[in-house]
């Protein structure tokens, strides 16, 4: 049970991505209305976006913005209980000798605070590349939607309907008329 729960919740994003893709594909396959098919395609692609976004995630990471050590330390110090003069010493040390020296200058902390600070100082950032990629993919997807909808509009103009079975019937009648 717990295994299932872990599987379900830790990988929730991936379940969402797969479900969205499947729903989208089903719509493409099963819907006769062409616009609904296009919506299905859109859902399908949205699923992929979630997949990409999820894979960039690093648990507990910050936004992928470049910080200097001093900025990072200042952020960390603002989150823990520490005497102001020791904080000032640490900030001075970080300018001179880097994070390790600053951490030494800070002296001992309450265990909870120490852990918190260490985590904040070492905190990785999420991988920005998939997000950048998916921006491009979204543009592509939007263009596809535009072309698809344009074609659907043309189909509506040519056949008077966007229901695929009605179009099939219309074509069959044309073919029958041409034969006789």
């Amino acid at each position, binding site marked *: 049970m717990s295994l299932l729960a872990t599987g379900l919740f830790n990988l929730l994003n991936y379940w969402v991505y797969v479900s969205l*893709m499947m729903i989208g*594909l089903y719509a*493409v396959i099963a819907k006769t209305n*062409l616009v609904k*098919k296009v919506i299905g*395609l859109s859902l*399908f*692609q949205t699923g*992929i976006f979630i*997949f*990409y976004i999820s*894979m960039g995630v690093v648990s507990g990471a910050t936004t992928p913005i470049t910080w200097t050590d001093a900025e990072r330390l200042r952020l960390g110090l603002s989150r823990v209980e520490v005497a102001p003069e020791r904080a000032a010493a640490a900030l001075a040390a970080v300018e001179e000798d880097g994070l390790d020296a600053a951490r030494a200058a800070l002296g001992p902390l309450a265990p909870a605070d120490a852990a918190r600070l260490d985590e904040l100082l070492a905190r990785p950032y999420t991988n920005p*590349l*998939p997000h950048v*990629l998916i921006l*491009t*993919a979204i543009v*592509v997807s939007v*263009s*596809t939607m535009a*072309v*698809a909808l*344009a*074609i*659907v509009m*043309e*189909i509506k103009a*040519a*056949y008077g309907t966007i229901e695929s079975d009605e*179009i099939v019937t219309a*074509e069959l009648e044309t073919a029958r008329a041409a034969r006789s």
Partner: protein
Amino acid sequence: MTLTPQVPALVVLVPLLAGVVIGLVRHAGLAWLLASLASVTTFALTLALAARVQAEGVVIYAMGGWAAPTGIELRVDALNALVLALVAGMAAVIVPTSRASVAREVPADRHDQFYALVLLCVAGMLGVTATGDAFNLYVLIEISSLTAYALVALGRSRDRRALTASFQYLIMGSIGASFLLVGLGYLFLATGTLNMADMAVRLADLHGSTTVRTGVAFVIVGLSLKMALFPVHQWMADAYTYAPTSVTALMASTATKVGVYITIRFVYTIFGHELSFVIMPTDAFLLAFACLAIVVGSLQAIRQHDVRRLLAYSSVAQIGYLVLGLALGSALGLSGTLVHLLNHALVKGALFLAVGAVVYRQGGATMHELTGIARRMPLTAAAIAVGGLGLIGVPLTGGFVSKWYLVAGALEAGLWPVAVVVLVGSLLAVAYVLRLLQVVYFGEPGTVAPEPAGEAPASFWAPALLLLLGSVALGVSGQLTGGLIAAAAGALAGGAP
């Protein structure tokens, strides 16, 4: 700064920018002129690039000066130099000569858009071929596909079914591309890079984790859709039948070939021999469907009444040959694929141009409209005849050389049934080609079709015959097969025997 080092980028940028500019000119004649100029220039650039590759080996171009793996690189070796020259060459032949058929088949107010789309499509295909970055590849595929959907839809003024064909193409193409995107996602997840060369190195160390294998599966299936491998080929038959004929000629000779190129690139360069053929059964998977494609595609071709549809189904079979060669996993098989790639592009392009001439004169291209055209359109008929023989793989055409390689490759691998399938495919090709020639030269028995007014303009048969000359040159001269193709095939097959 000279332009010489920038050639790899220019190959993509010239048609891309030309496409954008043409989209703005709003004048049919000017659009045609610009498009012709751009396509011919691009072809010249690709030739220069191919010469450079032959002289220097792999040409790497870092886009914007950002070196890989951070930046996006164009990476041109013998294989894609060949495909680049092919795509640009076909465009350089088809675009300048397409004016008459475009005038007949595309509404006058859409001519500028038509040429803009064609150039963008070509730029997309060239980009796909040149790029060394996997995600870039996806984006460029979509550029060429989106323009292709629109180009197919332009056939609607002649037949409204072009719209539904285009819609089907769009759905299938988008799903294929999306599969590719998912696959690349998994590969990125496993390797942390999108640069193809980097990815290849890191994949080799991973020995096929579940993530990698899932990625491979998505990529292969997505690419199968893109290159219209049986049994996901249906979109192609419809799109080729209803698109404007010059679009069909261009797409039939380039789009699926680029698809095959990407597959070769993934299977051999990125995945490598071990992942493709040892860890994953890609060879068995592709071989099975290639054989089915050859047999079923040819059988379906035999039964067609519309010649464009006949040729489209023949393309399904021919793609079977292409995939068969690459799935053999040997230098012989790959040589077969590459020769066939060139030959089939030339022959199919020529055949669709000739069919375009029939459409121009007769208003359609069913067997009925082709009946006995040889008498009034001897050159068009000759192009159909020679092209047909090239499809069969009659000696003196490139088709013979490629089938020779494929059969030899299959035998070398000890795959007797595959060799038999290639031979049976040729037999079926004889059936549908000779049925076509019979109608063209003697007329369909028992029917009288409208007599064509005369030979079509030279802009139809001249390029067709030019392309066929290329195919014959491929069949006669050992130069090409001995040079770039052997180099490319040898380099790719690498460790494989």
